[in-house]
């Protein structure tokens, strides 16, 4: 099975059997991956080796084995040059509370080598682009989590890099903040022309933002494909319906009706209130229409029909299933 799917012909990051072993753990195990321009999601559970990979790609930690290139530069020998052209937004808090966003970002711009006047100008521009206005003159200590994330993003973009590494940028944000951040990440590529490598342990939120998703687990490459492939095979639809007098158990009625039309339907699993939620795999636009028609025919009220945010475990399951499928069908 060939899994190579490049979004663009330009390779931004390339690794070749890259390994990183610590005395007790193997953080990366012969990872080979080609990442093109665009927005790429790096998905993996905590401890899957995402942060280790970023460290190696920034040239800050030598690989035990194998090699890696960023923007065509070898990470082992050209670390400083890479860091000049790349931005990095860490996962954890990294902002001093007693200075203003402007002062802080100007300082960081100068640390990236921008002359003082350019540093000030770029700071004003970048803060505006990430959505910080008058508050940028106030000390960071008084900011909300969402605003702090924006400052962290601004310091990674202020020197106009060719590529940014964003480590869990949606961590700690509420759903609205998450969506704002994801939209911003999308704009980094479409409007600013900067390639993005964004990590997350949630596949669902990356699916909608990224052109390409790389899944790692235990330091190994689990899968690397463009998100169009992903959504076609793994979009799970969650459906919840009301009960009516005709159908006292609406959920069951719907399940049976869908079954009759050849759909595989699962219960919502162990989630709270999941007894009323049905999960089914969307094969395409038709599935939505089918569910709508079936629900209407039964005369049930449709409470919700939404795309489920996948957890990483579902990728493991679906990739297993896919392998079986691939073994069964000859395509």
């Amino acid at each position, binding site marked *: 099975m060939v899994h190579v799917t490049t979004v663009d012909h330009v390779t931004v990051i390339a690794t070749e059997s890259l390994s990183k072993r610590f005395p007790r753990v193997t953080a990366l195990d012969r990872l080979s991956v080609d990442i093109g321009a665009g927005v790429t999601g790096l998905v993996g559970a905590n401890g899957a080796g995402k*942060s280790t990979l*970023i*460290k190696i790609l*920034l040239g*800050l*930690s030598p690989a035990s084995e194998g090699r890696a290139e960023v923007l065509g530069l070898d990470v082992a020998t050209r670390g*400083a*040059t890479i*860091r*000049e052209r*790349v*931005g*990095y937004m*860490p996962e*954890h*808090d*990294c*902002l*001093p*509370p*007693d*200075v203003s966003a402007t*002062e802080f970002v100007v*300082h*960081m711009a*100068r*640390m*990236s*080598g*921008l*002359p003082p006047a*350019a540093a000030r100008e*770029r700071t004003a*521009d970048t803060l*505006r*682009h990430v*959505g910080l*206005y008058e508050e940028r003159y106030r*000390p960071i200590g008084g900011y909300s989590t969402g605003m702090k994330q924006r400052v962290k993003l601004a*310091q990674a973009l202020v*020197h*106009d890099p060719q590529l940014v590494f964003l480590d869990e940028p949606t961590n700690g944000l509420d759903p609205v903040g998450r969506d704002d951040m994801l939209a911003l990440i999308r704009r980094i590529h479409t*409007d*600013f*022309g900067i390639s993005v490598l964004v990590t997350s342990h949630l596949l669902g939120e990356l699916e909608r933002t990224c052109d390409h998703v790389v899944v790692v687990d235990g330091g190994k490459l689990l899968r690397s494909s463009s998100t169009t492939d992903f959504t076609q095979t793994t979009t799970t639809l969650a459906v919840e319906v009301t009960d009516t007098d005709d159908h006292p158990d609406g959920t069951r009625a719907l399940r049976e009706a869908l079954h009759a039309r050849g759909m595989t339907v699962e219960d919502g699993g162990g989630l709270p209130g999941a007894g009323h939620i049905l999960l089914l795999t969307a094969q395409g636009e038709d599935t939505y229409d089918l569910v709508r028609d079936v629900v209407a025919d039964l005369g049930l009220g449709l409470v919700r029909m939404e795309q489920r945010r996948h957890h990483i475990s579902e990728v493991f399951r679906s990739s297993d299933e896919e392998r079986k499928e691939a073994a069964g069908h000859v395509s």
Partner: protein
Amino acid sequence: MSAEHPVAAVPGDQTRIHNIGYRTYDGPRLGRSYATRSLYSQSLRGAYGLGRSVKSKVLPMLLFVVMCVPAAIMVAVAVATKAKELPVDYTRYAIIMQAVISLYVASQAPQSVSRDLRFKTVPLYFSRPIETADYVRAKYAALASALFVLTAAPLLVLYVGALLAKLDFTDQTEGFGQGLVSVALLSLLFAGIGLVIASVTPRRGFGIAAVIAVLTISYGAVSTLQAIADAQNSTGAIPWIGLFSPVTLIDGVQSAFLGATSAFPGAVGPTHGEGAVYVLVVLGLIAACYGLLLRRYRKVGL
């Protein structure tokens, strides 16, 4: 609720008005040495609270004034009484004012490095072109320079005052020069010790307490032991005891080589031979502090 809606709409409007699109940057990127210099100047300014909040300017500025006022008074007295020489030697001034200097190191060393550790700003530096060694060098040089400003400024006041009082030019210039060499050594030594201690803890309070403890307790212990040695007439031991505190180290170096009168009991400074040991210990300590800082930051990483 209805009153909130127009307010909520404002940021959206602003986005549309101000959005003039993304501009790329094609200008120069000045690289590692420029970034190191920027960090140096930012840290040096920070050591006097410049570019920081008003609150953080108070202590360093106050200590700076406290350092300079006695010098100004001495000069005023010397001019008024038409004295033949200044009441204190240039080399002696820093030894007299050591408590103020220690307090300055204790307050500014943690300010310089503990904050970066505590707020985890360090990874942002190392994801940029500078290397660990550049960061350490910039921070070390900045605190040493700040200390040099603090200790050399009163000497400058004394020197200018001495010239105004028409004291002998050659004598004064020689004394001033020796004083500058002495405070330069002191600045390097104190900055190194202060930074090594402060870089171990992300907690600023601990850093302050630990630096004060190391600088003052060692001085207290050493001078007590020296006094005991003096009382028991074992004067030979006095210079060797003096090797164990930063202040007496500087005192020893300058009384052996920079024409200073020693503050040791009985004003017996080390001989030239012993003085050489003092110089080696001072230089060794400075190098050790630098080495320890490098080791410390090699571990921090991202």
